[in-house]
C-alpha cells in the first residue's frame, strides 16, 4: 500500500544571479513499512527532496500525495497541522529543546496535538524505554551524549504517531557505536511496528541497513534499488 506518491516533482532555486534545479522531475512512491535511504553526493538534492516530501519547502512543480492528501494543495497553516499529525522528523543535529528534559521533549509534540497529560506521559515513557533511555527520562539534552540525544529525537518523531519518519542525515554527528545503536533501534521499530523510515544519508552503515536505496544525482533519480 502506497503512503507517498511523488509525481513529476521539481524544485528550482531561482535567485537573481543563478538558477539551480535541485530536484528534477522525480517520480517515486513509498509503501508503508519501508526502510529507505536516499543517497547521493553533496548537492545532489537529498535534503531538498526530503524538505519537499515533509512539507517544509514548496516545490516549483509536481505533487506530493500522502495517504491520499495532496500536500501542496493545502494552505500553509494546514500544512503545519498536517506535519504535526502525519510526519515525524529526525534532524542531523538532533534539535531538541534544551530547556526540556528527554521526557518533556517527547511529550511536547503530543502536547501540541492536544493529547491529555496522562496519555502523553505514558507514551513518552514507553518510547524512551524503547530507544533505551528509560533511565534518562529527566535528563536535559545538555546532559546526554549525541547518540542519546538522537534517540530522544527518534522517540519524539514517533510520539505523534506519524505515517512516516523523515530523517535527514541522522547519523552524521554520531560515532560508530552510537550509529550502530541508533540504526538497530530504528530497524527494530521498522520491523516490529511497521514504522516507515526515509533517510537521506551518505553514511555507508545506514545504506547497508536500508532495504531500499534511492540514489540522486543533480536532482534526478539515478537508481532505485530494492533489497
Amino acid at each position: 500500500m502506497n503512503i507517498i506518491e511523488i509525481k513529476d516533482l521539481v524544485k528550482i532555486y531561482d535567485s537573481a544571479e543563478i538558477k539551480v534545479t535541485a530536484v528534477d522531475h522525480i517520480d517515486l512512491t513509498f509503501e508503508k513499512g519501508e526502510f529507505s535511504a536516499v543517497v547521493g553526493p553533496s548537492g545532489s538534492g537529498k535534503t531538498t527532496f526530503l524538505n519537499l516530501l515533509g512539507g517544509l519547502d514548496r516545490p516549483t512543480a509536481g505533487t506530493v500525495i500522502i495517504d491520499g492528501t495532496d500536500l501542496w494543495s493545502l494552505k500553509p497553516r494546514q500544512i503545519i497541522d498536517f506535519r504535526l499529525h502525519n510526519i515525524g522528523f529526525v534532524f542531523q543535529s538532533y534539535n531538541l529543546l534544551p530547556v526540556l528534559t528527554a521526557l518533556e521533549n517527547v511529550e511536547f509534540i503530543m502536547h501540541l496535538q492536544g493529547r491529555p497529560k496522562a496519555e502523553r506521559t505514558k507514551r513518552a515513557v514507553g518510547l524512551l524505554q524503547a530507544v533505551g533511555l528509560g533511565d534518562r527520562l529527566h535528563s536535559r539534552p545538555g546532559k546526554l551524549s549525541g547518540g542519546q540525544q538522537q534517540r530522544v529525537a527518534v522517540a519524539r518523531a514517533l510520539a505523534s504517531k506519524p505515517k512516516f519518519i523523515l530523517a535527514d542525515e541522522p547519523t552524521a554527528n554520531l560515532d560508530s557505536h552510537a550509529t550502530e545503536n541508533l540504526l538497530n533501534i530504528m530497524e527494530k521499530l521498522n520491523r516490529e511496528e511497521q514504522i516507515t523510515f526515509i533517510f537521506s544519508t551518505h553514511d555507508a552503515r545506514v545504506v547497508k541497513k536500508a532495504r531500499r536505496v534511492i540514489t540522486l544525482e543533480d536532482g534526478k533519480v539515478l537508481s532505485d534499488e530494492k533489497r
Partner: protein
Amino acid sequence: MIISVSWRNIWRNKTRSLVVITAITLGIMAGVFSTAFMKGMMDKRIESAIHTELSHIQIHDSLYSKTNELKYYMQGTDALARRIDTLPHVTGVTRRIIVQSMISSAETGAGVKIMGIRPEDERKVTDIAEHITDGKYFEGIKRYPVVIGEKLAHKLNVRVRSKVVITLQDLNNNLTAGAFRVAGIYKTSNTVFDESNVFIRYEELAQLTGMPPGACHEIAIRVEDNRYTIPVRAGINPLLTGRERALTWTEISPEMSYVTQVMDMYMYIFIIIILLALLFGIINTMLMVILERHKEIGMLLAIGMSRMRIFLMIIVETVLLSLTGGVTGIILGTWLSKHFETHYIDLSMFGKGLEQLGYSSLVNTSIDPAMVINVTLMVIVTGIIAAIYPAWKAIHYDPAEALRIE
C-alpha cells in the same frame, strides 16, 4: 507547557536576562517611589491647605465671594453655626470677619488680610495654634492680641509683645485703626500664607469695623475626613436661606484640585517614559533571543508547532521577563515608599523654595494601591508590545532555511 517552556527559556542566558530584569526593576522601582514621593508631597500640601488655610467647607454671602467687600456680611450666623455643628461628621465650625487692611510696625507696613476669629472655635477648624513658634496663641496679652506669621514678623521687624497698628476701612467707609500687641508668631509650610494672614479676636475686629453682633463674612467648617466633605455640604445647603453659598475646598481653591489631577497625569507620563525606555531594551533583547534560536524556531515549525503558538510563546516569554523585573521593581518601590510613609525625607536644603510654593520641606511618601495595580498592568502591556515585533519576525522564519543553519 508553553508557559513552562517560556519561563525556562528566560533562564537559558542568565546574565542577559538578569541585566534586563535589573534594568526593569530599577526603572519601575524609581517610578513607583517617585510617584509615591510626588503624591506624598501633594497630599501634604492639600492636608496643610485644608487644615491651615481653607478648611473643608466655607460659607459666604455669594456677593462677598465675588467682591470681597466688607459690606457683604452674613447676619445672624450664631444659630446657623450651632446647627451646622450638630451635623454628623462635623468636627468644628468657626466664624470669621475678614478685612483687607494695612498693618504697620514702628519701621514699616504691609498689606494683609485680617481675620477676626474666636480662638476656641478656630482651634477646632484650623491648626494655626499648633504652628506657633514664638509666644502663645492669643494668650499672654490681655487686650488686643494679634497673631502674625513669622515671615511678616521679619518684614515688620517685630517680636512677641511688639506693638503693631492695624488700619482699615469700617462699614461706613471711614478709616479706622487699632493698636495691637503681638501675642504669638506662627510658621506654616506656606510662607506666602504666613506673610499675608493676621489673626485678631472676632469681637475686636467687629468693634473696629462696626459689624453688627453675630455677623461674619465666613463660616469655616471642618469634617472628620475629606470623604465627608460632599455629604456634609449637602446637609448644610438646606440650612441656607439667603444669598449664602456653601463651597467645598476644591471649589474655593480649584487650582489645588487641578494640581492634584495634573500631578496624577505627570506621574503616569513619568512611568510611561520609563517604560518606553525599557521597551526598546526588551525589544532588543528579544530580537537577539529569536536570532539565537532561529534554528530552534525552524525545528518547532517543522515538527508542527503552529505559528500562532510560536507567537504566543514569545509573547509569554517577554511578558514573564518584563513581569519578573516589573513585579520586583513594584515590590521594592512599594517597600521603599512604605518606609518613607513613616520616616520623613528632609528637603530642607530646598526648603525656602518649597515653602514659597506652599510645600513642606519634610515629605512623607504616599503610595496609591490603584497606581500599583496600574503600573503592573502597564508593565504587562509593555511586555506584550515589546514582544510583538520579535514574535512577528519569528513566525515568518522559513523552517527549511532555518534548519540549514549550522
